[in-house]
């Protein structure tokens, strides 16, 4: 199961990992292949990949991040022209180096016909992994991308159907501009933010490139692929790109490190994420003895695993739930996700001393991370905590369960004792954001127990406390164990 999770994560992150790749510009232009065409492609024009590429290659770009003082490229991605004034859309992760260290990097574009020029960063949307750029006029006042036409977005009123053919463009691995055919497969399920599942091959370097429908209109932006999977790729829905363009067309260029803008965006995002997460009640883990917190799988995916039935040692059942999508901050930092897991142990075959030893070992194994460039070392508080029974009866409790719970709530022996550790790490450059880790073990029995862990990346201090309290509330006796 662990490997499953890893590969899933990998997928989302793989996409991010391709930030360094070049992307090709998609075809969005009108029927004619002339640069100035701007109208959406006409429905009755042939829709082959070749035709689409011919039509939109004028708006397709490679976005290169170069070192400030030399021509070595630090990373490459793709992008496309979205206005007649030379506005360019790409992924935030394609330009993140420039956004965070504008003194060390600069941005340039290259067109399919070999033109090149400088770009400036107007705005970005880290949550959707999008960035808006604009070509800079050269010494003679000529803006090289002006008048080349722009790709149009497919209106939201015309949603794509599952299986419809769409075409991804970009410059994979800086090899050459490419057009890749694939299918629209709807949105990724259980994702916090909408993400299009594209059945087609996206490679590093294509990030930021457009994905076009048969009519040459932009339906999405290449963003990531799933690692160790074939043809499972992800696109940012075109509507987010369109709204960024509308919002920031006239924005002033960003010339200093954009940490505070990034922090504001991430702060707003985590507020929404935490609010939604706190609003959902815990599900039952179906453990006989303990009520263990498991999230509703609205935007998290859960995997489980247990020991073989004939195992002679410690029996356990493990469950892990996490968000598969994270927000890209920089090459060394991703954030904005929740992850939780628990292991329920049964040591009846072991005896108290052996169980205690192995339970301890499992608790000790939890890694909290150390100080690095992005975050401080974890600072922790720990305590024995007694969890009262949940207010209402268990979801799974029998009809008679609720009165029992209410009766016994007043008794002190009715509290489920836990050993709880709460650790926080602060982000160095994203003021006010923290990583939260909560470790919880039940300490009521010498031969069985449960170890839970909750992680939240990039949340405010207050939200971290709320999440920690919420997670602790997920632990209690089950009604049946209380009845004993």
């Amino acid at each position: 199961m662990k490997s499953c999770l890893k590969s899933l994560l990998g997928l989302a992150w793989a996409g991010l990992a391709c930030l360094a790749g070049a992307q090709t510009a998609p075809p969005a232009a009108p029927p004619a292949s002339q640069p100035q065409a701007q109208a959406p492609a006409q429905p009755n024009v042939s829709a082959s990949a070749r035709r689409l590429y011919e039509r939109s290659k004028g708006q397709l770009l490679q976005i290169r991040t170069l070192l400030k003082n030399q021509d070595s490229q630090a990373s490459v991605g793709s992008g496309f022209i979205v206005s007649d004034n030379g506005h360019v859309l790409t992924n935030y992760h394609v330009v993140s180096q420039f956004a965070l260290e504008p003194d060390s990097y600069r941005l340039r574009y290259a067109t399919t016909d070999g033109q090149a020029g400088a770009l400036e960063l107007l705005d970005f949307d880290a949550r959707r992994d999008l960035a808006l750029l604009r070509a800079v006029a050269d010494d003679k006042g000529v803006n090289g991308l002006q008048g080349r036409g722009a790709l149009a977005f497919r209106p939201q009123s015309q949603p794509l159907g599952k299986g419809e053919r769409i075409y991804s463009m970009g410059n994979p691995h800086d090899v050459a501009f490419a057009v890749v055919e694939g299918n629209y497969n709807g949105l990724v399920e259980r994702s916090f933010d909408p993400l299009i599942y594209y059945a087609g091959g996206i490679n590093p370097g294509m990030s930021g490139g457009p994905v076009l429908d048969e009519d040459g209109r932009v339906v999405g932006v290449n963003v990531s692929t799933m690692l160790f999977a074939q043809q499972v790729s992800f696109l940012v829905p075109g509507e987010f790109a369109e709204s960024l363009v509308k919002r920031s067309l006239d924005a002033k260029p960003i010339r200093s490190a954009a940490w505070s803008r990034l922090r504001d965006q991430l702060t707003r995002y985590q507020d929404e994420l935490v609010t939604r997460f706190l609003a959902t009640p815990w599900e039952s883990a179906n453990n006989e003895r303990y009520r263990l917190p498991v999230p509703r799988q609205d935007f998290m995916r859960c995997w489980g695993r247990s020991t073989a039935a004939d195992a002679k040692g410690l029996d356990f059942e493990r469950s892990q739930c996490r968000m598969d999508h994270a927000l890209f901050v920089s090459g060394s930092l991703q954030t904005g996700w929740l992850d939780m897991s628990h292991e329920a142990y049964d040591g009846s075959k072991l005896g108290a001393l052996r169980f205690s030893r192995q339970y301890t070992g499992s608790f000790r194994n939890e890694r909290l991370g150390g100080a690095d460039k992005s975050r401080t070392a974890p600072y922790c508080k720990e305590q024995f905590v007694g969890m009262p029974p949940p207010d209402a009866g268990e979801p799974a409790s029998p009809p008679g369960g609720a009165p029992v719970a209410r009766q016994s709530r007043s008794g002190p022996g009715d509290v489920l004792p836990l050993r709880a550790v709460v650790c926080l790490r602060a982000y160095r450059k994203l003021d006010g954001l923290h990583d939260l880790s909560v470790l919880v073990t039940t300490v009521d029995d010498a031969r069985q127990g449960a170890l839970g862990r909750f992680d939240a990346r990039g949340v405010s201090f207050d939200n971290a406390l709320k999440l920690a309290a919420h997670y602790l509330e997920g632990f209690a006796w089950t009604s049946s164990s209380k009845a004993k």
Partner: protein
Amino acid sequence: MDEQQQGEVMSSPEPQPIPMPDPVPAPPPAAVVELLGHDGRIVLLQRVTRWPARIGRSPACDIVLDDAHVAAEHAELRLDADGRVQLALLETVNGAVIGRRRLAQGEMAPLPAGGAFQIGGCALRLRTSADVLPAEQALAVHPARHAALLPALILAMLFFQWVDHWSASDPDARWISYATPLLTPLAIVLGWAALWSLASKLFQHRFPFSAHLRLVLGVVVALQALEWLLPGVAYALSLPRLMVLDSLAAPVAGAALIAWHARLVWPSARRWLDGGVAALLLLGLGLQVGGRQEQQYIFGPPYLAALPPPALRVVTPKAPEALIESLKPLKAELARQARKDNDGADLEDVGEE
């Protein structure tokens, strides 16, 4: 040589009678000649029964030396009128050395204070009752230990090792799997004690194996006991910082152990050894302090991972709100930590937005 002797005797027919009546006022001092080994220790001691005392390989001599570089009758120790001892060389090839001075056949010289001289390959020392004796040295007597102490310590160590391995293995573990965890530490401890005993042998000419073994076993067993005891107490009372002792125990006990071993090997340098070991210990701890400035705690684990049987718990659990409340002071502390490496970045951010 005979001629020479005769000549001497002849030349001093008059002084000769003088020593004879002299005994009355001052009897000659009692004296011994010590043969020193290469390490300066006395190998052989011979009493001077009469003056002059003849030294040589011949059994007829008063002081007999078994050395091929010594003549049959090599030299003579003579008491002069002032009570000083003179070394007079008889018929010899190799002569003698007093201090830095080399004496050839027929020469004579007084012995220096301390009475050291060399004949052939033998370092000799004359000690007389006129010399000042150093005070009696206190004998470093180690109080007799109970005979059962050593076996008890070995059993205790093996017991802890056994519990450690037993509790960490599943019920179907085979007995042979205990061999390595039990025997390896035993071998290491015995080898450690043997090495220190060898050092003692080198410098003290003793092989106090059991004393060294007692030291190392005592420290190992104490550490093992602490390893079980501390987490239990920390858990029972919910005092996670007690684990600081656990992380300090190993370096401190290790340093103490080395200091104790060294004390047995070089008893006279005790003060220097203690100081040196303490300095090394402080240096090591100081490096750790320097290396963990970013951590919440310099010593000890970030959290108490021990989960002994719940019956040990003494404190009552608190309400979850108390834990959440206790986190609040971390906000400022984390913000301060986060700013540490961040000063430059803060400046860059100015003017943005």
